[in-house]
């Protein structure tokens, strides 16, 4: 088995474990490349079916093309979609001008928490990867969150031999991370190999493209000439700039992401 085959096989194993062992299950679909690969892997794991809903936590600040693309794909594939917004915070005028981390906390973390409780999810499949940033590199494949969605990262359980955390108190939930061991370039090589359609915001227009997608006010473009998937792969093979360099919330302080994620951020 080559590297992409073994990554794929392990991800399918994880998805099937989640489906077999957890109660109500949902997949967080952020419209980006990683969760689009997840969608593809779910289809493979379940032989063309997708036995759980797709969830989009919509901050209302997303890049507009993302929403158009989301609705188009959901319709084409007949996905069961759950779109959730933190209506209360938005009504009170929440936005990045209130402080980036405060905004992320309200519109992503709290919205996600509301949605999890409302639908009684026991498992949320999330496309985070170890190579994205430090606190994610320390994650488990099945990562427990308490009733208050807190991640107790100092006391993570042992995880060995493909035996995951599948028993936990009622009201807790598990973040399932099938892409944990993939790297950014693995994702693009897999998209290339499988010919997976992705949103065209990743491809350069007028010398710029998005490398990571998020909310419009906090996500920057990078200089790039990459207009095709092979171009992107070539670009990544030669870059030393981190993937999330364009994501403003990560740069707020040295442990911004660790703190956000402790409280339930994906």
């Amino acid at each position, binding site marked *: 088995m080559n590297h992409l085959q073994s990554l794929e096989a392990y991800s399918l194993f994880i998805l099937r474990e989640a489906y077999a062992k957890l109660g109500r299950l949902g997949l967080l679909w952020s419209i980006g490349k990683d969760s689009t690969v997840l969608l593809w892997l779910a289809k493979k794991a379940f032989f063309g079916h997708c036995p759980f809903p797709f969830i989009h936590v919509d901050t209302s600040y997303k890049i507009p093309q993302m929403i158009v693309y989301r609705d188009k794909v959901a319709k084409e594939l007949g996905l069961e979609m759950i779109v959730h917004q933190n209506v209360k915070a938005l009504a009170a005028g929440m936005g990045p001008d209130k402080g980036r981390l405060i905004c992320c906390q309200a519109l992503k973390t709290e919205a996600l928490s509301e949605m999890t409780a409302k639908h009684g999810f026991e498992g949320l499949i999330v496309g985070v990867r170890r190579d994205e940033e430090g606190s994610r*590199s320390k994650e488990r494949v099945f990562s427990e969150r308490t009733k208050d969605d807190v991640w107790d990262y100092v006391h993570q359980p042992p995880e060995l*031999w493909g035996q995951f955390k599948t028993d936990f108190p009622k009201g807790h939930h598990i973040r399932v991370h099938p892409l944990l061991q993939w790297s950014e370039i693995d994702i693009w090589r897999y998209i290339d190999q499988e010919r997976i359609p992705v949103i065209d915001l990743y491809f350069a227009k007028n010398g710029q493209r998005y490398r990571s997608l998020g909310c419009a006010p906090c996500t920057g473009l990078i200089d790039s000439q990459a207009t095709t998937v092979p171009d992107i792969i070539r670009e990544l093979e030669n870059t030393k700039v981190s993937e999330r360099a364009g994501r403003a919330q990560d740069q707020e302080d040295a442990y911004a992401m660790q703190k956000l994620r402790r409280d339930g951020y994906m």
Partner: protein
Amino acid sequence: MTEDRHLAKASREKLKIVVAGHVDHGKSTVIGRLLYDTNSVNLGLVEKVKRISAETGHPFEFAFLLDAFEEERKQGITIDTTQLQFRAALRDYVIIDAPGHKEFLKNMISGASDAEAAFLVVDAEKGVEEQSRRHAHMLSLLGVRRLGLLVNKMDLVNYDQKVFLAITAALNEYLASLGLTATIALPLSALLGENVAQPSPHLAWYQGPTLLAALDSLEKVTEEESDLRLPIQDVYKFDDRRVLAGRIESGRARINDRIMISPGNKITTVVSLPAWLERDLKDEGRAGESVGLMVADEFYNRRGEVISLVDNPPLVSDRLKASIFWLGQKPLILKRRYKIKLATAEAEAAVIEIHHLIDSDSLAPIKAEGQVRLNEVAVVELSLSRPLAMDLFASRKATGRFVLQDGYDVVGGGVITWIEDRPPVRTGFSLGALKARCEIFEEYFYHVGEMAVNKIKPPRPHYGVGDPVPLVGRSYRYPESFDIVVFRDQVAIQIRNGQVANILPLAEFVYGQLPLVNGRGFGLKIQSNEDWLKARDDLATSNPENESSLAERWLDFNAYRHIPIGGDDFHI
């Protein structure tokens, strides 16, 4: 760059390496240096680590490239395991950093459990310490057989070859008693980047490869040539297909293979390996692949069963001995019950004996006092609530290891060293050397959820002359007196008034005008001695080609059996 080149790159090999050793001997620094020297770290992270190092008044801390948590950087220790990737000339690597602090042994094990090879880091100045040995011991239990030694901080001992030789000799002696041999031992200074990616003039007496070159010399091992083990994860019926889904842990599964599904030991044939995309369809699944199998017979299959080839099935048992490592804050207690998770199967496991503890320093057995405490290693005997399919760890890893759970938490892991091997439990009749395997008291039912006919074996396995037999079950009703003819064992059993009256060789059996059933409880369509002699000769020639036409001619399923409707609640 052409497309082909992309594919070639995409198909590069990846090897998982764990770096273990005592706290503060420099594991994270070794890895940080390796990443830094191979240009595998992005600039953002280097800048961030520079900033944090400066803020805390340190020189550039290579370890901070891995120790991402604020708590880790403040205390200067690794709390949790990390995995990082880097590319070398030959292949890609996943490097796993395992915490060396005793308190975080569970995190070390989480990291090391799926490593393909390990490097044990020892501080040249401090020498071999408690966790150096403990980690080596854990690696041997986890089944990591390929091991290299890194004597780090050589700059602190003036690059003295004698120090290096003394440390490697001490470690090799310890490893030998674990049955391990280090494939390589190399001196280095991770902090100064000596002998990591570049050789060092200070280590001129050392003729071997750098760490980077040593990595490239490791060979990748696959489980493809071993016996098939495919633990069932789930049975899918999303559409009109019924698919047994799972990951092939070893061996291969091909279309037309005769497979056994254990612990029930049901035999069937692989019909296809379905896939969502046509280009993923194939005739064969290999070790490591997550596949689905469609099989010829619709038994009641469930998660936890193990698929193998008929010639080489796993053992089925409810009694085993294992070497375990305990990770629970509360000790393991003799006689207590824990949940066992073995591949995809789950059951209850009672600790019926703690043979001894093993001292990680000396590897000597220590008498156990009825419990096994945090971070201790012990040899225990477990009794399971039901038989499971399993193997000895030494022969097949994935079905030879398990974790134990107490409540919600995984509290230990173990590798199987002994399995009580009893003959499979079957209903049978015997008299002296005469033995007949017989399934006439099996219950058949139609499983509504599965939309398939399933069977349940009775709990009472054995009958001798004089024993009463259960004439009426939920799916069968035999007459008070009848005869059973078991062709495969060439034995006949005479039941009279609900009791076993006689067991005799089939050759001596004389047709007595009583109802006849075969070994499965199907009626024989026989009215006369002439019929009987014909049926006997006919059925003696039974083979896979003619068995269904013979069955049609001579057997009547409905004579004494019927198939009631049932579900998971159906039991005897």
